[in-house]
């Protein structure tokens, strides 16, 4: 272990003892290749066993270790200590209630994710024995970028619209709705519309674009939402040409 050290100022909140969160500072020796998650694991293993946080894969795949590092939503496993000066402030994701320390309550997101039907709604359910739903590479290319979402919630933490109005369905859920709407195997677009094309859906977004800037998987939820707005607007005007299709 090298002699280099870094100070971690970590938000602590114990729901059984604290009325409000507080900050605790830990001095952690670190190596050049350490990420923030390594430093937090060091705190847990060597300095303070009471620290609570979520993590799993340590390779930006599971989406568990989203937190706010020096004011910026980031995956702790994807953020190198060497890129920071001697001190780092670590807080739980913004815009979610703090369950304990760095753990947030994400029930609101889970409910919203379910509400957009984030799965292929097939025209006709096929038996497994009947084989796959086939798709060409060009059809896949249309939505592949949006499949990279790992539900890490950095986008919700960065979104000022969600901060001000938590009825907003939010970036990741709307990006996933768009992902399935673009899928050639899917016919669920109309079924998703009640949630997606509503005021708390895409129309609550004012295209700040913060979601896309912080996304660790370059999903670009802001792009997905703007494209959905255009599709929804086209639907609205086309409905005047085809009044028999109007609801």
């Amino acid at each position: 272990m090298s002699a280099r050290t870094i100070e971690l100022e970590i938000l602590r909140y114990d729901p059984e003892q604290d009325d409000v969160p507080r900050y605790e500072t830990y001095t952690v020796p670190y190596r050049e290749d350490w990420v923030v998650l390594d430093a937090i694991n060091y705190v847990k293993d060597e300095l303070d066993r009471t620290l609570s946080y979520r993590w799993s894969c340590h390779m930006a795949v599971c989406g568990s270790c989203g937190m706010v590092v020096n004011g910026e939503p980031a995956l702790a496993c994807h953020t190198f200590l060497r890129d920071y000066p001697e001190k780092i402030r670590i807080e739980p994701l913004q815009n979610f209630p703090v369950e304990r320390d760095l753990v947030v309550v994400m029930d609101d997101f889970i409910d919203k994710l379910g509400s957009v039907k984030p799965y292929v709604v097939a025209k006709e359910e096929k038996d497994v024995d009947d084989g796959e739903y086939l798709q060409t590479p060009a059809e896949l290319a249309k939505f592949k970028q949006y499949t990279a979402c790992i539900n890490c919630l950095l986008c919700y933490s960065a979104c000022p619209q969600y901060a001000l109005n938590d009825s907003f369905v939010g970036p990741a859920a709307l990006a996933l709705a768009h992902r399935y709407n673009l899928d050639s195997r899917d016919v669920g677009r109309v079924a998703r519309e009640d949630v997606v094309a509503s005021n708390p859906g895409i129309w609550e977004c004012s295209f700040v674009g913060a979601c896309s800037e912080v996304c660790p998987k370059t999903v670009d939820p802001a792009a997905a939402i703007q494209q959905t707005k255009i599709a929804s607007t086209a639907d609205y005007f086309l409905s005047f040409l085809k009044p028999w299709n109007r609801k």
Partner: protein
Amino acid sequence: MSRHPYIREPSKTGWWLEQPRYIRYMAREMSALFIGIYGLILIVGLFRLSQGELAYEAFLTTVEGPAGLIFAVVAFVFAVYHTYTWFQVTPKAMPLMFGGKRVPGVIIIAAHWFGFLVVSAALWLLVGG
């Protein structure tokens, strides 16, 4: 063990000062205000034109005065900024696929600038100069 999650309330009025990207967003949105005011001035000009030559001459004197010119310069700067930010985000809102591949964003942005210049030049030829 009891659950007692802590809820952090966001600032309702000062939130946009908290991050440089929020300030950039507000600057982009605010730039539309100047374009809107410029549009209103044009409508006032049309109204004055309908009132006759004297009224229109008085309107022209006002907008060509120092305050009018300063506003025109400021509005122009904001209009350019608004156009720039708007064109920058067009690849996100209108991605194009060609031969199963995504058209690079820079081409979509350049096409918008090209179209903008063509329309501006055509307008200049029609009514300017």
